[in-house]
């Protein structure tokens, strides 16, 4: 029985890990989760063999094999939590975990003291604990608790930012907390007479986290989890009832006809099955209406309405932020213009004043004009005039345009263009994108540096990567990098990257930024090769830290 449960969860972990790995774009979050579930599978599958075998030597081997995966579960768990919560990496910390893992792995196979033997338990063979395993279990428990605490902290912070994010993290917190109970599997190893039910919390944890990773864009995973639990129970009841009905009717036929009839059984099963699906659908509708305030369609409509409301609220918040930013950007030049205008009557005869007046007036008016221009471009980017263009040519033209700046700042540029790199795009807008990105990169550098630009094709998209070894972007600034009026430059409207984002989105593409302070910044752009409008294409933006 235990072996069946363990094996089932092992296969479930493997399956869910594969689903997360293959579905959609490979991200660090998904890769780390896939690695984590693979280790879980590597833990439970050998354990299921250990529990089901009658050979103690085989049981010992598979016990050690399974525990070899357990050793690395804490580090995989840490990696996953770091990427999921987008937290910075603390390298020495991770090196410590890898080092300890390696030592434990060596001890596992070179020295019999880690798992000295297996003992026959009511559910099958099970490893015997040791002092080394005490350390190993302490590490696992501490890691699980620490990761849960991190989730709780981020969940509380998310409550002020976004209800959707809060609900997603709330369930993940619960999943994390539940996962800590998987450590109960250590208890029988130390002589505590409990059934190793660790596979249950692991199953719940993996299911919730898989859902959170794959479908996190839904409004709220709460209702989906509740609904799936109820449906699962109902489906189990209906299926059990189906089999009982078949058995009862078969018995009745036996009594009535006086002999067993396979044909009669088949006909019985067929008749019942005819009514099974409509009955299930009817029950599903009743449950939806009375327990979840609507059928799936009604809930989907409600979800859509709520999403629209959230989008509208977010837009209003963005407008408020924009208005505040714009007010600030205009007030500075207005202050200068006002002050100089006030002094004009009394200082008109002073040539030094007149010279400064002319300079300041021109400068401040130009500043306001540029800001308004950028704002217009950001607020309503012109629809792209698509033509077939070679991206490498656009980039080369842009590099020629800023050659003087590159020489002055001693920035080397290396390009690696993989033909073909043609896309359907607006030439002028793309030029602006590369100009903004390259100037940002160059201007951020405070010493001679390097920029690498490369292109490649994947899945019907052209990918453009622009990486520099500049100062990088601070973690606190990275999530705001595309916000209008946000800038870290001494002089700048703060609209450059907002405009870039708008143009890429208008082309149906996406833009991601990775950065590490002291190491550099990488911008990744994907453009659909055949062109896509903002309404029809996929688009997205992410900015995140690299380890």
């Amino acid at each position, binding site marked *: 029985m235990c072996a069946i449960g363990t094996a089932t969860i092992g296969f479930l972990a493997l399956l869910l890990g594969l689903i997360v790995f293959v579905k959609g774009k490979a991200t660090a979050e998904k890769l780390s989760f896939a690695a984590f579930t693979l280790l879980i599978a590597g833990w439970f599958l050998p354990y299921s063999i250990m529990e089901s075998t009658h050979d103690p030597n085989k049981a010992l081997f598979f016990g050690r094999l399974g525990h070899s995966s357990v050793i690395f579960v804490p580090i995989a768990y840490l990696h996953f939590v770091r990427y999921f919560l987008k937290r910075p990496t603390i390298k020495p910390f991770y090196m410590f975990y890898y080092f300890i893992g390696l030592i434990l792995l060596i001890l596992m196979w070179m020295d019999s003291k880690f798992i000295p033997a297996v003992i026959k338990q009511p559910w099958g063979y099970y490893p015997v604990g040791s002092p080394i395993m005490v350390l190993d279990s302490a590490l696992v428990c501490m890691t699980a608790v620490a990761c849960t605490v991190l989730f709780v902290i981020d969940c509380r912070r998310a409550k002020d930012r976004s209800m959707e994010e809060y609900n997603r993290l709330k369930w993940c917190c619960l999943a994390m907390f539940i996962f800590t109970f998987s450590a109960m599997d250590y208890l029988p190893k130390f002589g505590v007479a409990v059934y190793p039910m660790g596979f249950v919390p692991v199953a719940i944890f993996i299911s919730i986290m898989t859902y959170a990773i794959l479908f996190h864009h839904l409004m709220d995973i709460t209702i989906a989890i509740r609904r799936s639990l109820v449906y699962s129970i109902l489906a189990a009841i209906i299926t059990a009832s189906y089999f009982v009905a078949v058995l009862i009717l078969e018995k009745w036929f036996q009594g009535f006809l006086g002999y067993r009839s396979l044909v009669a059984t088949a006909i019985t099963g067929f008749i019942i099955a005819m009514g099974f699906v409509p009955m299930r659908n009817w029950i599903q509708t009743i449950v939806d209406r009375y327990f979840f305030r609507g059928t799936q369609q009604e809930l989907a409509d409600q979800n859509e309405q709520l999403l629209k409301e959230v989008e509208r609220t977010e837009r209003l918040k963005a407008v408020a932020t924009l208005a505040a930013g714009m007010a600030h950007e205009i007030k*500075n030049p207005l202050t*200068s213009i006002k002050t*100089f205008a006030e002094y004009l009557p009394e200082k008109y005869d002073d040539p030094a*004043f007149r010279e400064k007046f002319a300079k300041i007036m021109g400068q401040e008016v130009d500043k306001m004009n540029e800001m308004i221009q950028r704002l217009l471009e950001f607020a309503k980017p012109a629809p792209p005039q698509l033509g077939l263009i070679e991206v490498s040519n656009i980039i080369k033209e842009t590099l020629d345009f800023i050659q003087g700046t590159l020489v002055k700042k001693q920035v080397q540029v290396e390009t690696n263009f993989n033909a073909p790199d043609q896309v359907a795009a607006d030439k002028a807008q793309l030029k602006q994108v590369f100009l903004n990105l390259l100037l940002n990169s160059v201007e951020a550098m405070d010493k001679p540096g390097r920029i690498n630009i490369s292109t490649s094709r994947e899945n019907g998209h052209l990918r453009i990567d622009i990486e520099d070894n500049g100062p990088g972007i601070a973690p606190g600034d990275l999530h705001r990098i595309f916000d209008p009026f946000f800038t*870290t*430059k*001494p002089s700048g409207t703060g609209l450059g990257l907002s405009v870039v984002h708008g143009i890429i989105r208008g082309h149906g593409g996406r833009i991601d930024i990775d950065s590490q302070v002291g190491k550099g910044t990488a911008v990744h752009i994907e453009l659909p090769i055949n062109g896509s409008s903002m309404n029809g294409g996929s688009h997205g933006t992410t900015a995140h830290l690299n380890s």
Partner: protein
Amino acid sequence: MARPRILIADDEEGIRESLSLILSDSYDLDFAHDGEETLAKAAKGTHDVVLLDIKMPKLDGIEVLRQLKERKFSKPVLILTAYQSVELAREAVKLGAQNYLPKPFEREQILQAVRSVISAK
């Protein structure tokens, strides 16, 4: 008698020139272009008043105020900002700012504010 020295901390050249126009007749002026430069110059203790903008590169005005408070900076600080926010004003005063002046400002407003903190010393 030596004229009072004012440190003007603002990243905008137009603002620095405007304040220079208003204050240069009566005070000696020094300038800082960002938060870090402001801290470095203020720490020398050679100024009688600091006029501090909020939105500056490297370190914003609130952070500069916080660090000045930690270093037990005793000279008066006047905040100048285009952001009009009650929370910001409250935060600045909590961190020791003597006054909070919005932009665009009136020249009399600036002169009066500076005179009052200098005479209060």
